[in-house]
């Protein structure tokens, strides 16, 4: 029998259609069909000045907007060969780690709801609000933040930044204890996840899996450790690894990753240096707004950057970051003009989703739900 799961089924986490060929309850063949959003973000980037591309990156993984901002800004900074101030590095690390926590909170909520645990979703979304509040304080936006800029941040950190981060660092670990009490030894949850959607280390590498999906199979690859960016080499944290490569291992890994992210965020908050929130590179990095209002040179540079942009040298760069879902990379090719000649996003969700048939074929149809959830896809990123 052939059935279609999705494209609007709540458990498909967006507009994904999976065509299933069944023999009884066993999945013989699974074919994911994507391509319902047609956002055209890569094409759009070719017609925009470099700094105007940043808002489009939020829309790809809307559950981790700061990670997308960071990947793009780092790629353009690499293209321009500019260094940002230490304070910017620390603030970016802190905010992207909290983004990871936020993304994993949504994951644990929606994934467990797929498996029938309704209350878990309400708890996770409630605790996510603390991080959304911090976003709002920093960027003035709760979801599409566009807070990072090429060469720095959009605004300086807000006055109550410390207090808001401390509230998160206190609240989330308490909440996680509750989650674990609810799920980790829960018999139903264990039965639905242990041994489900299993993938070996060798297959995971060959499928190009990254992030918790790869580390769940025991492969020690994390961009933050392998090729540190934004000053990650200064922070003390560990990379949790799984053993069995099943859904339960990936759950344990994401939970531990949240703890490690909070640990990094605590270090970043304690070590946050004083200093400017933007690099001083006239003609390339927007000058701070207060300077624009009081200094003629800053006003001129501001005007020129906004109207003409800047022209990086010819060449191509690739910058990867460890986003909540895996390796998020930006490949930017410059032809020397003020717009990207080509911007390619290496989306973790797209590549991870391509492994779905491998995860579900031979399993039960009910486990397809668990498999889709455990990949943690966001369709905005799949269909850029």
């Amino acid at each position, binding site marked *: 029998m052939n059935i279609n799961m999705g494209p609007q089924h709540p458990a498909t986490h967006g507009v994904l259609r999976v065509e299933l060929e069944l023999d009884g309850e066993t999945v013989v063949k699974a074919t994911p069909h994507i*391509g319902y959003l047609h956002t055209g973000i890569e094409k759009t980037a070719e017609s925009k000045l470099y700094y105007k591309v940043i808002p489009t990156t939020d829309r790809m993984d809307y559950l981790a907007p700061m990670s997308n901002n960071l990947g793009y800004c780092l790629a353009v900074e*690499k293209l321009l060969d500019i260094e940002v101030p230490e304070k910017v590095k620390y603030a970016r690390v802190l905010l992207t780690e909290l983004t990871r926590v936020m993304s994993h909170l949504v994951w644990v909520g929606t994934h467990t709801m797929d498996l029938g645990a309704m209350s878990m979703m309400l708890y996770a979304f409630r605790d996510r609000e603390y991080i959304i509040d911090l976003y709002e304080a920093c960027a003035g936006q709760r979801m599409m933040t566009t807070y990072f800029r090429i060469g720095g941040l959009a605004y300086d950190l807000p006055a109550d930044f410390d207090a808001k981060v401390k509230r998160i660092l206190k609240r989330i670990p308490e909440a996680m204890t509750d989650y674990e009490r609810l799920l980790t030894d829960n018999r139903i949850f264990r039965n639905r996840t242990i041994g489900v959607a299993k993938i070996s280390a060798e297959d995971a590498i*060959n*499928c190009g899996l990254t992030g918790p999906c790869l580390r769940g199979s025991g492969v020690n690859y994390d961009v933050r450790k392998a090729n540190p960016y934004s000053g990650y080499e200064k922070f003390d944290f560990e990379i949790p690894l799984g053993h069995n490569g099943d859904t339960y291992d990936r759950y344990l890994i994401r939970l531990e990753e949240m703890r490690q992210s909070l640990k990094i965020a605590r270090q970043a908050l304690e070590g946050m240096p004083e200093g400017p929130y933007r690099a001083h590179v006239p003609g390339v990095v927007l000058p701070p707004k207060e300077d624009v209002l009081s200094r003629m040179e800053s006003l001129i540079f501001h005007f020129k950057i906004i109207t003409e942009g800047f022209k990086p040298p010819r060449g191509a760069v*690739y910058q990867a970051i460890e986003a909540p879902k895996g390796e998020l990379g930006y490949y930017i090719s410059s032809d020397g003009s003020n717009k990207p000649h080509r911007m*390619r996003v290496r989306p973790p969700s*797209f590549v991870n989703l*391509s492994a779905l048939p491998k995860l579900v074929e031979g399993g039960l149809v009910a486990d397809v739900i668990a498999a889709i959830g455990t990949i943690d896809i966001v369709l905005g990123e799949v269909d850029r």
Partner: protein
Amino acid sequence: MRDKLREYLEKNFGDALIREDDFRDQQSFYIKKDFFLDICRALLNHDEFQVKFLSDICALDWFGDREEKDGRFEVIYNLFSLKFKYRFFLKVRLDGEDPEIDSLSDLWHCADWLEREVYDLFGIVFIGHPNLVKIVTPGELQGYPLRKDFPLTYEIPQFSYNKDEPPEVLQ
């Protein structure tokens, strides 16, 4: 690994190498199309390098640029050695007329979708791909959107003065 990789490719695939590029400390090798599959297979199975991870496949179109003389399309393979934590790029130039290149789907499972995406958006054919069909654009869309000569349209916004007229689309 940077120097060893260069030495290895120069020694074993000297005829295949066109040039090396080291922009912003990123190693890229431009290679000839005919040798491409052999190089990938050799790197994947090489005992020391262990280039097991194909991170990404993408392409770009040099239409109208001075680079077009070396081949209109550039297909970029983003490879990563988990052992050395080292990333490098293999780049292949293809002609504008009927661009085609060997598929890597036999070597890496992830090449399946990545190649389909490049095919869908650039019209580059991957020889030997088991299921080379569109993946992200609608079935009725003609042409390849990420090519530089793909015609862009513009829809006139509807305001009060033209709300009764049918939407007008400009080529």
